């Protein structure tokens, strides 16, 4: 299964393009890291993936479904997205019920199994009977990820999943990504956290003012410093130091 972006354009108003001529493919089992300064169009790209926004030009196919012709709720069968703020989605009285929400909506026949797997992968078994708001903020973020994982959708997309996480949760996210990829899920992550995600990415997409300035392997990106700087980004200090010292970054 693949996600196919073909010459995608998007604008809220005709004279103000937000995304211009974006093309890429992503298959299941792969991980695409989406980078760019704030305002580059990353969140817009995510919203185009599941039909929240419809492209004004070009086409987007998710597992063969044209996003322009399908509702977000129906596209959720193929791609599940979580956004930055857990407060915009948490509503259930227990962690378990929160995680059950997506597979129930999507009428997955193996919903119970999906929920248990998500609880186990995200190490939330002990917290399952608790109210989501009784969890610390970092764990609530992990809960939103778990909720997407339980959807059973072949593609998952996350908007800044590591923001606000502390060391314990970052390690967990590490583990989760490896496991999800190994299980054949396709992942798209929008993040500034190069240190955490670059080693796992099979490809990197760099946006600048709505335009695609780089699409390729992480190793290629690291060789070409100007590409990152051109997009208004820098390597984190740790990665820069490691590079200067000739240490492996990936």
């Amino acid at each position, binding site marked *: 299964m693949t996600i196919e972006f073909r010459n995608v354009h998007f604008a809220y108003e005709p004279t103000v393009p937000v995304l211009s001529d974006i093309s890429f493919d992503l298959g299941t089992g792969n991980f695409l890291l989406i980078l760019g300064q704030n305002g580059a169009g990353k969140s817009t790209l995510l919203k185009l993936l599941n039909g929240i926004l419809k492209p004004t030009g070009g086409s987007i196919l998710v597992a063969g479904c044209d996003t322009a012709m399908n509702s977000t*709720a129906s596209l959720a069968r193929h791609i*599940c997205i979580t956004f930055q703020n857990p*407060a*915009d989605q948490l*509503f259930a009285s227990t962690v378990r019920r929160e995680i059950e929400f*997506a597979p129930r909506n*999507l009428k997955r026949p193996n919903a119970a199994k999906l929920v248990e797997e998500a609880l186990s992968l995200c190490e939330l078994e002990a917290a399952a009977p608790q109210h989501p708001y009784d969890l610390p903020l970092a764990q609530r973020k992990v809960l939103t990820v778990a*909720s997407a994982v339980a*959807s059973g959708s072949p593609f998952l997309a996350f908007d800044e999943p590591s923001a606000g996480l502390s060391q314990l949760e970052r390690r967990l996210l590490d583990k989760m990504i490896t496991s999800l990829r190994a299980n054949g899920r396709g992942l798209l992550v929008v993040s500034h956290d190069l240190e955490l995600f670059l080693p796992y990415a099979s490809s990197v997409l760099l946006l600048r003012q709505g335009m695609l300035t780089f699409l390729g392997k992480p190793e290629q990106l690291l060789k070409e410093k100007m590409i990152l700087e051109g997009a208004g980004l820098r390597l984190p200090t740790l990665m820069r130091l490691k590079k200067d010292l000739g240490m492996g970054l990936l």
Partner: protein
Amino acid sequence: MRLDLSSKLALVLLIWVCAFTLDWFINVPLLVVSVVARYLVPAFRPQSRRGNSAFNKFLLYSVAILALLATLNAILMPGGDVLFALAGLKFHHEGLMFGIKTAARLLLLSVSILVFFVSTPLPDFIRFLQQKGLPSQLVLVLLLTLHFLDQLPGRINRVFVAQEARGAPVRAGLFSRTKSLVSILSPLVLSSIVESIDRGTALEVRGFLARPESSPVQIQVKTKLNALTLVLLLLSLGIFLLFLLRWLLAS
């Protein structure tokens, strides 16, 4: 003509007094005048496109509410002549009049408040309240409430998007939407409460609650109880007293 906030508030008070004390044959024309004034009088024009759109949507819903109230009361409240019958249902004169009066009153109350808030920028309103010496705690509560209302459409949209992305049928038929209601309302309320607490803390640490009663900063907007405000307040008082007198004499 720039109407100062004291006069605007006095006008709202006058409309509210009329709505509760006067008969429908005055309230209905008053309602029409209020709606027309919002379009014609610069002081009552919305400050933003969003305010304009909100008011127009409200008007559309009002017509529906008026029709619904009138119809239900005409059917359910027997009394007076039967105006007509439709599909076995009888529409009574008394019920219809009661429905129209009630709807007119409700709409007059809500139109006056809505016109006030869409035509008054929040910063001006808060500044006005502070200069009138309202306690800072009360101003803070009002500010947070108004801010919450202002942010509500954006917040609703974000919650819709987040739940729809997990397959919730929030834009499907009525039954499906009703089922999804808890998953919309709950994060809406909880996230609003959390943000209000944080915003209140942020204002507190900027010394908002310790603000001195009169702040002689050069950009202070001057308001005072002017002649128009006095006239409006006296009118409100007069109408209310007349109503009281009428009621006492009738009993």
